[in-house]
């Protein structure tokens, strides 16, 4: 039977052919929890009476959501994580190392054909490497830490074919916002969203991660992209596992297919307060902006910072602008390329690698009535810590341009 990418990876994993709807039990290649989910995971792990982590070399803790801590309650939970990590010999990434979804591939935990489970909904990001990756909750993560296994339902797949060349000011973020607008916030519930087409083939790993990152915003279990030479080059020197080329079969059955003509796309924004409330930038042009945030697991990578810096070079921001590289590695590369200097000279606040204001805990909570343009993935009411703020999701180019203009403006004059 011809197979989708999701079916192929899971079939390789359990060494027999699987089909959608089937429940399979998989051995996990990497398991991750962060400071929003690990404390509850530790509590469940102990409550179950477990004493040993199945394979500490595959288990990862990251402190990224409130990093550094903003209050003593959070600090106590961080301490609980450090102690557990030390006791069990886990891979542990403390404050300032970066965002979990950036660190897992950078540090070699993700590879094609692997199963990656994370106690975070955006774990779907790793599908950009043809890994089967999805988010679960804390108690299930405790079960994974204890046993190394979990049940999964084999998903149906939605095929998203992207063809044509993107305009210079249109990015992977605009593609995925467009797709979410078409599919809806629950249009791909429980499915794998498989991206293909010449545009995706051309995209960098950074861009592919942006595409897969937001799969959960359509309700999907994961986003997936075939692995290729670009995948291999990224993972070279990072992980021990072989980098296999895994592609879907051309005649595989998809529940549905969406074709995106990339050359026709314009910059998009997701408007308050739902991610699928997607509009062309032109429709909201002129909206005054109080805060811009460039960063997160969606758009905090080197390519994103380069795009933002290109816009901001030699300019001054008109509203407060926070930039947070997704990891220490990204930060260092941006520093060496002179990007950080560009941000600082433009008047941006450059912060510690981590989730930053995206999760509403610290580092840029907006005031009631304020408008935020963020390169993040969620604009739910209250998401950034204030239920009366208005969040627009956009690409780093649109966000940087909004910072310079103090309002949302189409970035078309930039090449």
């Amino acid at each position: 039977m011809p197979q989708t990418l999701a079916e192929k990876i899971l079939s390789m994993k359990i060494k027999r052919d699987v089909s959608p709807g089937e429940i399979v039990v998989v051995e996990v290649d990497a398991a991750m929890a962060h400071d929003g989910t690990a404390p509850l995971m530790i509590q469940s792990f102990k409550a179950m009476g477990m004493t040993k982590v199945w394979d500490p070399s595959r288990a990862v803790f990251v402190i990224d959501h409130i990093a550094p801590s903003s209050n003593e309650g959070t600090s106590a939970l961080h301490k609980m994580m450090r102690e557990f990590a030390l006791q069990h010999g886990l891979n542990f990434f403390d404050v300032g190392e970066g965002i979990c979804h950036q660190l897992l591939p950078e540090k070699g935990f993700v590879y094609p054909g692997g199963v990656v489970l994370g106690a975070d909904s955006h774990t779907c990001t790793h599908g950009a490497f043809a890994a089967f990756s999805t988010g679960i909750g804390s108690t299930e993560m405790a079960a994974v830490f204890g046993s190394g296994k979990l049940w999964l339902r084999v998903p149906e797949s939605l095929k998203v074919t992207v063809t044509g060349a993107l305009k210079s000011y249109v990015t992977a973020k605009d593609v995925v916002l467009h797709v979410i607008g078409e599919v809806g916030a629950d249009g791909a519930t429980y499915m794998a969203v498989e991206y293909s087409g010449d545009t995706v083939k051309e995209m960098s790993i950074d861009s592919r991660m942006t595409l897969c990152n937001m799969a959960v915003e359509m309700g999907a279990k994961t986003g997936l992209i075939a692995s290729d030479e670009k995948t291999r080059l990224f993972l070279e020197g990072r992980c021990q596992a072989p980098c296999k080329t895994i592609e879907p079969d051309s005649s595989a059955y998809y529940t549905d297919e969406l074709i995106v003509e990339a050359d026709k796309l314009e910059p998009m924004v997701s408007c308050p307060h739902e991610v699928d409330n997607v509009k062309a930038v032109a429709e909201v042009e002129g909206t005054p902006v109080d805060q811009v945030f460039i960063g997160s697991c969606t758009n905090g990578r080197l390519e994103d910072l380069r795009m933002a810096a290109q816009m901001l070079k030699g300019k001054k921001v008109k509203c407060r602008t926070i930039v947070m590289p997704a990891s220490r590695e990204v930060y260092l590369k941006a520093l060496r390329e002179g990007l950080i200097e560009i941000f600082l000279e433009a008047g941006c606040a450059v912060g510690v690698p981590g989730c930053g204001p995206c999760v509403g805990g610290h580092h840029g909570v907006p005031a009631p009535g304020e408008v935020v343009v963020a390169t993040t993935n969620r604009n739910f009411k209250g998401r950034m810590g204030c239920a009366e703020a208005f969040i627009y999701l956009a690409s780093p180019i649109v966000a940087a341009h909004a910072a310079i203009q103090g309002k949302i403006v189409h970035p078309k004059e930039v090449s």
Partner: protein
Amino acid sequence: MIIKGRAWKFGNNISTDHIIPGKYKFKTLDFRELAQHAMEGIDSEFSRRVQPGDIIVAGRNFGCGSSREQAPLVLKHAGVGAVVARSFARIFFRNSINVGLPVVICPEAYEAVEQGDLLEVNLAEGMLKNLSKGTVFNFKPLPDFLLKILLDGGLVEHYKMHGKFIWE
């Protein structure tokens, strides 16, 4: 397991940020405290007025967004007996079973239930009764292995009872 309580109606796409805003969950594991903020993002009176056993009746995609297990946990600690929805977000659905919060997919019930109606849910039989209106709806019960985890009281209790996971 039979759950009986008054209906609380909510719309589509109620996210985990509505159910428990992120700013609270990073600070504590004290669920008596966290439960005081249950549904705060959509109804600030909810946690004060909800009665033990009350049933949330929601539209599509309930529990979308973050993977935080604190979301079903605060509902459970606030006294919610079950959540009935047209559909659920995937992680919230799994989490609910794992913490022992009954979840029911029953698209037909949504229009036929008003705020405050007295409802009765039979999980094993897959039956939802609107006692205020005298109507009955059937739904597909959970697969056996998930129903078992739920009826054991969640994954922790399940593991403590059996010494292994049902899928092992």
